């Protein structure tokens, strides 16, 4: 239930106050697409989108990130020694993130923040960020978050949830971090029964609009090798052109490459997004490639999300149902169809 309400007309004032204390990232419309960007003024924000074209993963895992710097100057006593690069980890807000995308960060924590190793950049960005979500009043025809453990108003992974209730936003504070954030801006009023009714009615309407669902309950019990060797991969991969757009837009695709770049005797080591769709991803120095064939690469992507991840972490699939891959795939490969094939194998 709502802890507070804020009139929509007061949103610019709220964002301005947040900007006094935080770096703020929010959906901004640019060249026909809405994506998350750092804002400097409240009027840059555009909340008219269904969801951003790209997932907000780049805010935690930049598409290209410098890791270390070094000199190749042989007269320097530091030649060849890598040094960490200073970065800005001051407090920031991601405003307007959808619940599905917030859940993706929780899933990626399992990969980047482990008992053995902690990815320092991922962990520091997570720690310094407050997530203010925006519930989905109008889910898209490709959305299926409700069948993968999230939902249009799920608070999983969020610190604060905003729900559009007509003339006002109903605000639900989820975590202590969220509470602290809100105490700094001192804005909003107590909610009324009318707000509660309005929230319930948008929530009910959104769930009715949610037409897509996937089945995943058998995935854990399916035999890994039987799924791996299933005949249907030939059909699934047939049209794939290995363009990698599914991995590019996916909030739970985190694979990366590490490369060195040198300019005039100074260099950086950086990491860039990479994708299992590309043959170079797994090419050995010897020339051997365990995933040389397109079928092997397509299978890897779906097996990773819907089987290996399920078996490794036991928290469900590595998919939050945002539907971006379904929308963007140039040959209409539909992960909802692959869910069914994998879940129903042998049934």
């Amino acid at each position, binding site marked *: 239930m709502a802890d507070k309400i804020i009139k929509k007309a007061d949103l610019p004032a709220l964002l301005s106050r947040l900007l006094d204390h935080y770096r703020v990232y929010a959906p901004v419309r640019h060249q026909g697409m809405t994506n998350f960007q750092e804002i400097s003024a409240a009027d840059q924000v555009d909340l008219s989108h269904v969801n951003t074209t790209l997932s907000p993963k780049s805010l935690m895992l930049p598409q290209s990130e410098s890791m270390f710097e070094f000199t190749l100057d042989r007269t320097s006593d530091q030649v060849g020694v890598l040094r960490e690069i200073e970065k800005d980890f001051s407090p920031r807000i991601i405003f307007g993130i959808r619940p599905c995308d917030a859940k993706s960060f929780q899933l990626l924590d399992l990969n980047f923040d482990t008992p053995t*190793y902690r990815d320092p950049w991922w962990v520091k960005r997570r720690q310094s960020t407050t997530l203010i979500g925006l519930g989905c009043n109008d889910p898209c025809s490709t959305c299926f978050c409700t069948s993968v453990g999230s939902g249009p108003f799920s608070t999983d992974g969020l610190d604060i949830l905003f729900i559009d209730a007509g003339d006002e936003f109903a605000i639900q504070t989820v975590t202590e971090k969220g509470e602290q954030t809100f105490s700094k801006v001192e804005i909003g009023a107590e909610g009324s029964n009318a707000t509660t009714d309005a929230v319930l009615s948008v929530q009910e309407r959104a769930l009715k609009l949610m037409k897509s669902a996937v089945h995943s309950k058998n995935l854990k019990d399916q035999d890994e090798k039987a799924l791996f060797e299933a005949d249907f991969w030939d059909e699934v991969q047939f049209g794939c052109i290995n363009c990698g757009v599914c991995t590019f837009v996916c909030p739970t695709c985190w694979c990366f490459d590490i490369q060195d770049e040198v300019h005039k005797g100074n260099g950086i080591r950086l990491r860039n997004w990479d994708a299992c769709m590309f043959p170079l991803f797994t090419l050995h120095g010897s020339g051997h490639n365990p995933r040389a064939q397109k079928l092997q690469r397509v299978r890897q992507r779906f097996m990773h999300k819907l089987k290996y991840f399920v078996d490794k972490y036991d928290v469900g699939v590595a998919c939050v149902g945002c539907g971006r891959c379904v929308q963007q795939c140039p040959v209409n490969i539909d992960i909802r169809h692959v869910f069914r094939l994998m879940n129903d194998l042998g049934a």
Partner: protein
Amino acid sequence: MENPYLPYPVRIDSVVTETEDRNLKTFKLVFLNSEDREKFIHRAGQFAELSIAGKGEIPIGIASAPTEKGYLLFTVNKVGVVTSALHQMESGDTIGVRGPLGNCYPWEQMEGSNVVIIGGGFAFTTLRASIVYMLHPDNRKRFGNLTVIYGARTPGMLLYKDELVAWEERDDIHMHITVDAADDPNWKYNVGFVPTITQETAPSAKDAYAIVCGPPIMIKFTLPILSELGFPPERIIMSLEMRMKCGIGMCGRCNIGTEYVCKDGPVFDLAHMSRLPNEY
């Protein structure tokens, strides 16, 4: 927070060309900072990422034993960008080491057992580390019979020749060195492929573990022989290779099914491997 991507700076102390084709060199590395040296505690079977600023990183098995203190050995085959650059480097140059990474051979489990080591070509590096470790006076009595079958294409392609000769002369290790072919009339060891020599020497599977590292073709023909000799899949130990970047289970490329070779491996027993998808 410790940054697991940051290599320790090390100095190349010496470079030894191991093979007649000059494609394999052993690099002896010493840490620039003593606190890094103390932090780097490895076990035989683990690997590390060697880092050359401006070129990148490569995952290489650690060829020195944990009992060899104060330095690390890596034997590197010249293959790609980083290994070629490394082969151009000389003693005194600075590179980086990140690790130790991955799991090791199952030393606790193997304690008290006989150990059969089967290696081929340049995959003998972590096997050398294992042999040196087991032969150390503190450790030798913790293992039963030690048998080594090691083959290369020619006598000139064998790694660590001086040590092989020294081990031949010991009575607490049974050495079976072999080559595919030798034109040296004075060659006094075996001629034949590793699987053939394994069949001929027929090491007993009783209370024994077999550690097998080598090219895929050698593994393919050696595994059935070990099974025939009575080695159960749980006691056939292998070390896998994969293209890697992060080395810590995060970058996503080296998986076989659920397992990341860099973090969950590189050492797997045959029973475990047979449960994984056949994609390596």
